[in-house]
C-alpha cells in the first residue's frame, strides 16, 4: 500500500516539477522564481532541513526491472536507461550480479557509499547550517557533512566509504562534489559498481516545501566510458512527531548476547 501510494506521489511530483531542461541546466534564477514558496533559512538559502526518504526501487536495481520473488518491479532512475560500462567493467558487473549474496556491501552491512545511502529504503535527516549541512541516516546510522564554507577537499589519496563532500549553492540548488571513495561499495543490489576513481556530483533542489529534486552525476573513467546521471524525488516525512530510529544491521547477529543471555 505504501509502495503504491509512493509511486503515485512520484508520478504527481514529476508532473509538478519544473521542466527537465531547467532542472538539468541548474538555472538558479529560473528555479528561484518558480520556487518562491519554498522554506528558506535566515541566510535566504532554500532550507533542506527535515526528514526525507526516497520512494523508489533504485536500491534493488538502478534500471527498469520487472518484479521477481521478493523484489517489486521498478522504473529506473538512470537518465537514458543505460549505464555506460567499459567492456571489461561490464564483465565485472556480471560477476558481481552472480555473487551478490556475499559481495554486495549491503549484505555485509558496510557503510553504503554515496549516492546509494540516499536511496536506501530508510529515512534520513538533513540539518542545514550556513557552513555545513549535516545528514544523519537511519541506515547503519551513517553520517555525512556537506561543507559549504568554501573549504577544499582534503588532499588524497583517501579512501572513505562515504567519500568527502564539499558543497556550494548555485542559485537555489545545493551542489555537492564528492570524492575520495574506496572501490568496495556498489550502487545497487545488482552489482552496479565503481572504482576508487569515483567522482559524484549531487544536486539538491526543493521543488516545493515537501519535495527535493535529487540529481546525481557519476564519473569514473576506470569503469565508465562517459559520465551518467540519475534523478529521483526525495519526499519529506510529514507524519506528526516522525523521527529516525535504528537500523544497525551488522549488530543483529550479536544482539542476543547482550546485555546477558537469558537475563
Amino acid at each position: 500500500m505504501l509502495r503504491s501510494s509512493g509511486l503515485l506521489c512520484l508520478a504527481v511530483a514529476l508532473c509538478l516539477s519544473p521542466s527537465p531542461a531547467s532542472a538539468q541546466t541548474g538555472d538558479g534564477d529560473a528555479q528561484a522564481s518558480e520556487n518562491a514558496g519554498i522554506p528558506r533559512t535566515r541566510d535566504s538559502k532554500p532550507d533542506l532541513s527535515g526528514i526525507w526518504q526516497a520512494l523508489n526501487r533504485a536500491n534493488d536495481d538502478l534500471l527498469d526491472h520487472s518484479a521477481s520473488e521478493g523484489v517489486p518491479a521498478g522504473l529506473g532512475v538512470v537518465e537514458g536507461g543505460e549505464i555506460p560500462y567499459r567492456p571489461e567493467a561490464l564483465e565485472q558487473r556480471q560477476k558481481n550480479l552472480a555473487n551478490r549474496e556475499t559481495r554486495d556491501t549491503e549484505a555485509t552491512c558496510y557503510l553504503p557509499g554515496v549516492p546509494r545511502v540516499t536511496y536506501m529504503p530508510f529515512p534520513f535527516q538533513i540539518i542545514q547550517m550556513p557552513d555545513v549541512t549535516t545528514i544523519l541516516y537511519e541506515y547503519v546510522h551513517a553520517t555525512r557533512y556537506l561543507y559549504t564554507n568554501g573549504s577544499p577537499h582534503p588532499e588524497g589519496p583517501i579512501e572513505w566509504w562515504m567519500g568527502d563532500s564539499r558543497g556550494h549553492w548555485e542559485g537555489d540548488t545545493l551542489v555537492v562534489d564528492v570524492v575520495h571513495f574506496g572501490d568496495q561499495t556498489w550502487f545497487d543490489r545488482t552489482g552496479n559498481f565503481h572504482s576508487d576513481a569515483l567522482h559524484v556530483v549531487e544536486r539538491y533542489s526543493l521543488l516545493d516545501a515537501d519535495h527535493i529534486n535529487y540529481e546525481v552525476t557519476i564519473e569514473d573513467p576506470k569503469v565508465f566510458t562517459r559520465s551518467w546521471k540519475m534523478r529521483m524525488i526525495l519526499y519529506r516525512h510529514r507524519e506528526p512527531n516522525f523521527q529516525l530510529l535504528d537500523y544497525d544491521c551488522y549488530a543483529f547477529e550479536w544482539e542476543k548476547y547482550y546485555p546477558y543471555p537469558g537475563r
Partner: protein
Amino acid sequence: MRLHQAAVALAMTVALVSLPASVSGQGAAPEQPTAPWPPAQTPDGQPDVQSVWSPVGGGTQSLDPAMSSNALFQERVTGVGSRNPSRIVDPPDGHIPYQPWAAALQQELEAVYETPTRPEHIDTQTRCMGPGVPRLYYFPRFRILQPADSVVFVWDEYHSFRVIPLDGRPHIGPNVKLYSGDGRGRWEGNTLVVDTTNLNAKSRLDVVGDFFSDNAQIEERFIFIDGATMHYEATITDPTVFTRPWTMRVVQKRRPDEEFWEWACHEGERDSAESSSQIVGSDAGRN
C-alpha cells in the same frame, strides 16, 4: 582483535607522549577555547552551546575508577597507576549500587574480558555496536548542533548521533528500543535536561562490563558552567539491576572547531562469525 586494540592503544600512547613535547617545543600550552558568557541565544531562544566538546580524562575502560584503555596500557608499561577517582558522584562511596546478582555478573565479566571464552565476554565496543548513552559522553569528542526545536549530538567515533527534540512531544511507544534511547529535552536556564527512555541496553557502560537493563531510564543534565565548561551528569534508574538510582559526572571542555573525518568500524570485517567462534573451545585465546 586484542592485537588490534593493543596496536591502537600503542598508537594513542605514542601520540599522547609525543604531543606535549611538540607543544612545549613551541613554548605554549594549547589555548582553551571559550565563548562569551552568558551564552548567545539561537534563533529559537536556546542558549547557544554549539561547538565541539571533549571529556576531561575521557575513556571507556572503567567508570570506577575513571580510566581509559590507553591509561591502562600506560599503567602496564610503566607500572605507575593513574589513581583516578570514580566517575560516580552518587552514591558518595563512588560505587555502582548493583543488586547482588548483578554485581556478581559484572565481576565475572571483568575477570574474563581479556580472555573471552563466550561471545558475551567480548565488550560491545569491540563488536562495533553503538556505545549508546551515557557511554558516548566519555568518548573523545562530539559536536553539538542546535537546529530549531532540537539539540543534536554527533560523534566521529562510531558515527553515532542523537537528535533530542525540545518541542514537548511524547516518547515513542515502549516496544521500540534504541541504542541511544529516546531522549526528550528541555532547557532549565543554561542546563539541558534530557529524559531518556526506550534503551535497548545492548551496550555496556565500559570495557569491564558495567551494565544496565532495558528497564533503565536515564535523566541526563548538561550543565553549562561557563563558556568553556559543561558538566554531563547522568542519573540511571533501573530497579532490575540496581538497589537505587545513581549518578555519574563527566566534565566536558569546549574544543576548537574541527572537521570530523570518517571513522568506520565494522567495515572491512571479513568474517565476524569466524573470529567469534575462535574464542570458543580448545583454541581460546588465539584471538
